[in-house]
């Protein structure tokens, strides 16, 4: 042992130095962590303990033109949970399954939501019943990670009556989350799925707020109120529509339960949509917060196809309602005089080449001028008018009168109508082996022509306003009108007189006349290879200063007279004329 005092003193100095260096090293490390990197760790500590709870924003209320509510929000309860891992979520869900009456589909939906956004509370029940909520509240302490929130729930007071245009809301889906349009959305949020709700999603969707809960390491909330001020949800502004809810409900009423079809009412001067209905309808309130499987299956199985919107999606040959388009094209091209009649009189049919084309009335109409041909809807007249115009001009005229375009109504589901793009369409379809008989078919609204109800209403709006076709608008937008044809005053008045005569005695819709009101309109029959023919009526009133255009299609309605009854009832109700006592007879 070398314990000479000098040696010991040297070793003592060395060890003291080592001690001082060791402690300086530690102090330096703490200085770096606590003073230099302080801000970073304070943030991490905040992130640790503050759990943001999203506060859903109420969607914008949708009003009709008089301030009646079409869509609003009711208070509902959502149940969600926070979980550190998928496994702990699974465990919690299986524990809660009986209390919450969860089925396997709801559990797997919750797990999918979690995988998408593990840091957000995972929604288990978007719309929990008050029974479940009260049970959970009683056992609040047993389930510390559960979050029961009062959330706004979409409600449509008139339910099925407004479904055709208002659409519905639902939870955002996986594929929608992948859509850049919804880049800012989070799983579990409600979005517009159809109709106005979808069309105006960006307006109707409010700004989600956030509340900060202080939680411990196990995610259990420890203090009632957040240590940071809440960011309150911002409700969306209301959406004012042109819909006349009273007229809408009346329209729903005139479609008796047995009838199926579509109807639309437009103000021809502005394009404002006053009513839009597709029968049979469905209940959008049942769709909110997830469509019940049995209800959805019931709708899918229904042969009347309630999920197909017959006012904007269904496409039907316009039949005789199209004869006005043929007339406009002929007049515009100067191919027919107002008092001219066609070379052959109507004898109940027309021989063209080797084929005989029937008129709808076997008795025949004899010689007719344009006005008479419209009144009686004489097919033979229009066969010959079509031949005069010629196929290429007929197709071009149809295109310029937007028979190939969507009406532009502000609903996302609208279908584009069918109309040939050029003669080449027939070449492509039939090779060189097609006959000019196509011209005859096209001239009377059959053949390669299928129109939506809304597009026919748009065309008749133009007829009501000297060729100015408005874009149909449900909500306020910038009104858009387009001159789709130009006719002289006399030409216009002949067409109008013809349309008026339809609803006079002897006209095809004479039975639908309303006392004290001049109606103008046209019936039509859409030949249906798959079953009974569909019935059309498109018309407007008052004939000389039109305030409303109504287009009605009745599926399997055989003939337009029944559709005319419905249309004239709608018109009468809107213009406060009536009550009409129309007898539903086959005209």
């Amino acid at each position, binding site marked *: *042992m*070398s*314990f000479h005092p000098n*040696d*010991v*003193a040297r*070793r*003592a100095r060395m*060890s*003291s130095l080592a*001690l*001082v260096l*060791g*402690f300086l090293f*530690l*102090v330096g*490390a*703490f*200085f770096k*962590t*606590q*003073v230099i*990197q*302080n801000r*970073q*760790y*304070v943030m*991490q*500590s905040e992130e*640790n*303990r503050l759990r943001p709870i999203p506060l859903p924003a109420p969607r914008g209320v949708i009003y009709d033109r008089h301030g009646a509510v079409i869509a609003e929000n009711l208070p509902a309860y959502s149940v969600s949970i926070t979980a*550190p*891992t998928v496994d702990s979520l699974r465990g919690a869900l299986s524990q809660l399954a009986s209390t919450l009456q969860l089925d396997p589909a709801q559990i797997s939906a919750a797990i999918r939501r979690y995988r998408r956004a593990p840091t957000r509370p995972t929604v288990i029940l978007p719309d929990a019943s008050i029974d479940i909520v009260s049970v959970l509240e009683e056992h609040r302490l047993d389930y510390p990670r559960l979050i029961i929130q009062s959330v706004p729930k979409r409600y449509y007071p008139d339910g099925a009556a407004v479904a055709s245009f208002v659409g519905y809301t639902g939870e955002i889906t996986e594929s929608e989350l992948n859509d850049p349009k919804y880049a800012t959305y989070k799983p579990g949020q409600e979005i517009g799925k159809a109709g106005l709700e979808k069309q105006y999603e960006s307006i109707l969707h409010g700004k989600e707020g956030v509340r900060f809960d*202080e*939680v*411990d*390491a*196990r995610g*259990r909330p*420890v*203090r009632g109120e957040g240590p940071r001020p809440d960011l309150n949800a911002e409700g969306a502004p209301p959406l004012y529509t042109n819909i006349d809810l009273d007229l809408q409900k009346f329209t729903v009423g005139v479609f008796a339960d047995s009838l199926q079809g579509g109807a639309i009412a437009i103000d021809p001067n502005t394009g404002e949509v006053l009513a839009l209905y597709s029968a049979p309808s469905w209940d959008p309130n049942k769709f909110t917060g997830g469509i019940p499987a049995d209800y959805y299956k019931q709708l899918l199985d229904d042969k009347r196809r309630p999920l197909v919107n017959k006012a904007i999606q269904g496409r039907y040959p316009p039949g005789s309602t199209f004869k006005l388009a043929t007339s406009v094209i002929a007049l515009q091209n100067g191919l027919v005089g107002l008092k001219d009649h066609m070379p052959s009189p109507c004898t109940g049919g027309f021989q063209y080449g080797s084929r005989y084309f029937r008129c709808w009335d076997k008795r025949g109409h004899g010689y007719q001028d344009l006005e008479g041909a419209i009144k009686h809807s004489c097919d033979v007249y229009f066969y010959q008018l079509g031949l005069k115009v010629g196929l290429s001009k007929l197709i071009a005229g149809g295109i310029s009168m937007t028979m190939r375009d969507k009406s532009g109504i502000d609903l996302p589901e609208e279908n584009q109508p069918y109309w040939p793009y050029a003669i080449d369409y027939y070449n492509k379809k039939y090779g060189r082996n097609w006959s000019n008989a196509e011209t005859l078919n096209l001239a009377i609204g059959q053949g390669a022509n299928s129109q939506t109800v809304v597009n026919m209403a748009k065309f008749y709006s133009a007829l009501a306003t000297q060729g100015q076709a408005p874009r149909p608008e449900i909500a306020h937008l910038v009104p858009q009108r387009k001159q789709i044809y130009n006719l002289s005053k006399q030409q216009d008045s002949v067409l109008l007189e013809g349309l008026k005569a339809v609803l006079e005695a002897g006209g095809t819709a004479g039975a639908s006349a309303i006392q004290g009101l001049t109606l103008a309109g046209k019936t039509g029959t859409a030949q249906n290879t798959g079953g009974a023919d569909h019935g059309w009526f498109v018309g407007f009133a008052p004939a000389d200063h039109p305030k409303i255009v109504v287009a009605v299609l009745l599926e399997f309605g055989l003939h337009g007279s029944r559709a005319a009854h419905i249309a004239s009832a709608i018109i009468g109700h809107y213009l406060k004329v009536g009550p009409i006592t129309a007898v539903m007879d086959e005209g």
Partner: protein
Amino acid sequence: MSRPIVSDFRLLASAGLLSLLGVAMVYSAGQTDTPTAVAHVYKSQILWLLIGLGFAYAVTHSSVRFIEWMTVPLYAFSIFLLALTLVVGKGAGTAASTKSWLAIGSHRIGQPSEIAKVTVVLMLAKVLSARRESARSLLDLWKPAIVVGIPWLIIMLQPDLGTGIVFIGIFFAMLFWSGVAWPLLILIASPAISLILSFSVGLWGAWFFILLALVLWYRPYLIEGIVLMVLNVATGVVAPIMWEKLAPYQQNRLKTFLDPTADVRGSGYHVIQSKVAIGSGGLFGQGFTLGTQKRLAFLPEQHTDFIFAVVGEELGFIGVAVVLSLFLWLFLRIVQVAERANDSYSSLVAFGLMSSWFVHVLVNVGMTLNLMPITGIPLPFFSYGGSFMLASWLAVGVLMRISGEGRGSALSLRS
């Protein structure tokens, strides 16, 4: 035996202040938003402190010679207790699978390794002071190697990596204090260094050449030199196999030390939360008992292994600096005590006890900032635990006595 109470004010003051601060922090550690059993442990910590003070008081009344006389039986008894843990040991805390606790039924009595830390120091001092000259060769060191080796092996069998590190620290510090030349210390340590460096072939190769140069310069016995080189080669090869033999939680702790973010929710969680707690404390801390990381239970083992993170979070850098300064003040004073001790045994005991605490502080405090691996060794005077508090104050008593008998003290002047 009936000499008057000796007082080394600096020793008593620093150890006393550290203990009071420690009890306060154990109390704070129990103040969580969701109350746990930890809320009450400060009471038993106070009790243990009082018992420790009583023992320390008693020890100051016994002479160093008596302690030296008692050394062998105490050492033997502690080895016996340690060996007992292998048969009936229980785990606890972060190392629940180890067997470092003695227990009757489910009631844990204490950790014999805490007592062994003191008795090994005493025994090592006795063995090293018995030699007239400092060890010059490896063979000279067989006795001290056995003194440390036996308890070390038992502890590694428990297994308790942290305490094992403390024993190695004590061993080297006391060899250094006994006058063993530093090249020899490096030669002794070389197989362990080989072990660590064996994970990189290049590093190990470089180390091997340095070692070769050292052997040629220091010129130990030829046979020793050869054995040493063979040992180094062997450990370099054995290390990867050893790694496989480590328990998964030990492997995880070492891996976590290298990269705590690799396993955020697992082992790395402790270190990350500890760093967040300390870092968010800032200069002045969040205030006594108010640390949010601790309150909300993000901080694991906040009353034992990670109690220093509570200090950092609640008392800030100022608090950390004060506590570390107190430790340094205590340790520097003990070096003085060792320097002025009457005899080599006393001197070695003092230095050995100091080095044991220093290793504890360095590893425990370093661990809270991820500067050291998580080995689960406690912070002297702070971490909750009866055995360690008791052992620490026994050590304080011994140091007081040595200080009292040393040169320049009232006692030595009179004798």
